[in-house]
């Protein structure tokens, strides 16, 4: 009997090795536990935990969530108990989870980011750190860090100095030059980039004439933003050498493949978990089938392989004929 080689779906992000290329997006998957009865946590790459800040944050007023065409708008506002409480009460519960846990830090100053990152990264339960410089739902300058390459570089340099663990910097799509921001993050020591966070959006109730979110504006996620995110991955992949976690509206194997071909090494799944918690497992199984069907042995063989060259004159003539 001939053994059929199973494709290798593992990925490496800096020092972090993951058995599968699927990361559950921050703020979408709690601490993994919430989904444990519906999804096999051993079959996902990692859970990116909800972002934590230096001080406790109550979060935004309600309503925080609206379903819209092909996606949803949310304005949670980084509700979290602050790093002190988080380390004492929440992190100990993470021990023994059957999946890799990636911490996520957010802040309002460079000092905040460095402080929270250092403390969070000191814990064994946390395998790597996502640096969320792109949350669209905090008042004032929450997104400034991801909108200005000089600030991106400063904040990433500051967190880099606090830990050797893998740093994944999450970029915003709400910029004109995402490649420039990506280069700044790479230069400052990011090990990987998550591309992208939600797209800013708004919905209005036409009966009451009021915004449908308590925070007025929110972040759009789901299939509605997929082409925006694929383009962002494509542009970032041409600008940096570090791996990219492509994310934004991935629901199917085909969606995941688009991101890989555009230049991602791994993929993030967020909103799709709200449709069906089995989506991550389906995508992993589908990627494995796809690689076998194509005679490929590793997921890395897909990364950045989109053929975007112009058609030759001969090809065009051939088509016309």
């Amino acid at each position, binding site marked *: 009997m001939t053994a059929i080689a199973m494709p290798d779906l593992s990925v490496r992000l800096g020092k972090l090795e993951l058995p599968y290329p699927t990361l559950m997006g921050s703020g979408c*998957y709690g601490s993994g536990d919430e989904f444990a009865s519906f999804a096999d946590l051993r079959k996902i790459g990692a859970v990116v935990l909800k972002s934590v800040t230096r*001080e406790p944050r*109550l979060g935004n007023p309600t*309503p925080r*969530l609206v379903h819209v065409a092909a996606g949803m708008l949310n304005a949670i506002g980084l509700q979290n108990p602050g790093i002190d409480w988080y380390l004492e009460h929440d992190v100990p519960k993470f021990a023994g989870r059957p999946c890799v846990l990636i911490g996520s830090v957010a802040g309002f100053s460079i000092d905040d980011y460095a402080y929270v990152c250092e403390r969070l990264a000191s814990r064994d339960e946390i395998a790597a750190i996502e640096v969320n410089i792109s949350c669209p739902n905090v008042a004032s300058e929450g997104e400034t860090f991801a909108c200005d390459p000089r600030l991106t570089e400063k904040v990433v340099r500051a967190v880099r100095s606090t830990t050797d663990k893998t740093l994944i910097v999450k970029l915003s799509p709400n910029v004109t030059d995402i490649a420039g921001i990506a280069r700044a993050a790479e230069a400052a020591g990011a090990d990987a980039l998550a591309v992208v966070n939600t797209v800013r959006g708004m919905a209005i109730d036409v009966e009451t004439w009021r915004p449908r979110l308590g925070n007025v504006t929110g972040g759009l996620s789901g*299939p509605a933003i997929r082409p925006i995110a694929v383009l962002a991955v494509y542009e970032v992949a041409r600008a940096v050498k570090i791996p990219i976690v492509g994310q934004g509206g991935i629901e199917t194997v085909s969606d995941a493949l688009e991101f890989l071909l555009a230049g991602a090494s791994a993929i993030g799944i967020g909103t799709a978990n709200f*449709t069906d918690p089995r989506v991550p497992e389906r995508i992993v199984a589908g990627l494995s089938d796809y690689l076998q069907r194509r005679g490929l042995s590793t997921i890395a063989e897909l990364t950045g392989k989109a053929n975007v060259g112009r058609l030759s004159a001969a090809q065009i003539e051939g088509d016309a004929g």
Partner: protein
Amino acid sequence: MQPALDHNARVHVTSVIDRRVVAPGVISLGFRAPELARAARGGHYVMAVPPTGEAAAVALGIYEADDNRISLLFFLTGKRTRELGALRPGDELSMFGPLGNGFDLTKPPKRATIVAGGVGIASVLLAAEELLRAGSRVELLYGARSSAYLVDAKRFARLGCDVAVSTDDGSAGHHGFVTQLLEQRKPPELLLACGPSPMLRAVAASAARMGVRAQLSLEETFACGVGGCWGCVVPLSAESAQAPSFPPGDRGGSDVVYARICKEGPVFWSDELRW
């Protein structure tokens, strides 16, 4: 509150066995789902996955449950519920649950009052049945926009509930709000309610005047339904036993915390809500 039975909460793929149009734009779908049916208690819900899989799952209260079958009752309000409402017997559907903390019926009283508004009736039938089985006298105060929307009012009466109805247009029962019926009652030992938010606020106010605590089943737009996203929160007294883990003493000067309706609720004590 009555906790969800987590060990039974999982993804169920089942098929529709019956479909009823119970009021204009209100559909009841029945499913063969023995595990769900045996685990479900009053106030529990499921997340139903719209068949095309192109939209987020919908939280729907478990209306009926016996040994083998459950049913879900819902209004056709948008794309997702219209997709579910178009299902016919034999069609397959995925759902996960049962979820949420249901009504606390651990101390059945001599007399209980249930206030239901519109499709809020979907969350109280199991609670009424459980109370009746335990020997409680149950009064249902049921309000709807018109007589056509009073789903299964007679059925509650047949079960043994005392039923009083109200309608917005006066086409049946009291002409006005269901909470006006509540105001005419003596304070019940146990007060449960499910319905639109203004009705629940009025029930909470009545309960406070009567000096009783009401258990209110709240409705909100859910994303994950399992506590992972913090999208469906309601402000709750920080001292509440249902308040999620949060640092004591420092809540940014606030004496409230946001609790997840999907996870800590959907049933909350009226006097602990700070909405």
